[in-house]
């Protein structure tokens, strides 16, 4: 859950983002209060608030006065777009770099990707059985 490598407020923001991306927190649904986050993760309430406020600043959450915090309309699309961009920089670019180094062509790379998919499926199925 909370680890030591980065500021906690960033981790809280990411935990909420994850829930929005995988649908656990639907758009227009209410988000737990900062005090609830603080109590659940046993962290300082001000730190939890900082994480939530960051998402408010980015337009992912919005405040309803006197009621609480809600997921904004279009938040999921916004996050998915951002994550895709991050995915490209964090995974695809190094992958392409390494592939070039090893002389793996585009078609070969595509083949490898589809192979990885079937292998993942088989492992998942065998785990499920």
């Amino acid at each position, binding site marked *: 859950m*909370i*680890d*030591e*490598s*980065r*500021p*906690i*407020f960033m981790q809280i923001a990411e935990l909420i983002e994850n829930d929005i991306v995988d649908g656990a927190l639907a758009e227009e649904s209410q988000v737990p209060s*900062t*005090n609830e986050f*603080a*109590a659940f*993760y*046993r*962290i*300082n*309430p*001000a*730190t939890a608030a*900082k994480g939530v406020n960051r998402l408010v600043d980015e337009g992912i959450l919005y405040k309803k006065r006197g009621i609480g915090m809600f997921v904004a309309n279009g938040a999921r699309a916004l996050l998915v777009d951002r994550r895709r961009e991050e995915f490209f920089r964090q995974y695809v670019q190094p992958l392409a770099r390494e592939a070039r180094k090893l002389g793996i062509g585009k078609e070969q790379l595509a083949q490898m990707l589809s192979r990885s998919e079937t292998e993942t499926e088989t492992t998942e199925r065998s785990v499920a059985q």
Partner: protein
Amino acid sequence: MTDPGESTIIEIRNVTKRYKDTTALDDVSLKIDGGKIYGLLGRNGAGKTTLMSVLTAQGFQTSGEIRVFGEPPYENDRVLSRICFIRESQKYPDDFNAEQAFASAALFFSNWDKAFAQRLADDFQLPLKRRIKKLSRGQLSAVGVIIGLASRAELTFFDEPYLGLDAVARQIFYDRLVEDYSEHQRTIILSSHLIDEVANLLEHVIVIDKGKIMIDDDAEAIRGSAFTVVGTGTRVAAFTAGREILHRESLASLASVTVQGRLSEAGRAEAAELGLEVAPVSLQQLIVRRTMDPGPELSMNGAATELEVSP
């Protein structure tokens, strides 16, 4: 309760406290803002209790100036009535039981919440009618913790409040502290040497060592402000050359070095290139590293061969 906002509520300048042959506080200057949970961290005997004592005028500084809520706290009932400080070695009247100690607290702390104290006593399974003199060490700590929490003083000190409390009771304390602080914001100064346990509760960290303030920073700024690289000695030495080294350890050809500073993306890539593992450093490890000598230098052409004892 007045606004617990961000304004400075404690200001001390060049405070020194000398006992016969030791200097417990050595020219300490410090500002503390209202409305936050502070961690006052350090080893035993680093000066934590002494600092809290002079801040609450229970003890006296040898020299220097102290202002709390804008005034010197010494013999100042106006200032003192807004403070609660139960010592780790707090004494109680011989004939008192916990219930009577709470009844006293109700007389002096205007925000005292009797129902909350009762609930905490239940949580800690504290026998209210037994004389305090006959309580176990953990139960004695619980009495202090309950007074500290239920007093809801604008400025509350907890002096190593967990002594003798088991893991469950300590967790109860941390949970109640976070819950109650969420609803009743105030300034809390929590002294501790069990740093890992409290790290996530803190908004601001003050580390004191040998009577001097060593770190005074936002907890979030400290988090990730150091990292450890592990790998082959020569490669680790190459990677860490020119960086500020907090600690070195080596075992055969392996070396583990703790470096001050944030690791950039480029640095992370470089470490990966060299086949080095990078691990975050916890607040506790960071403080241990920074209050200790770094250890012998690694040579570039081979790691030190002797096995060092890690702290």
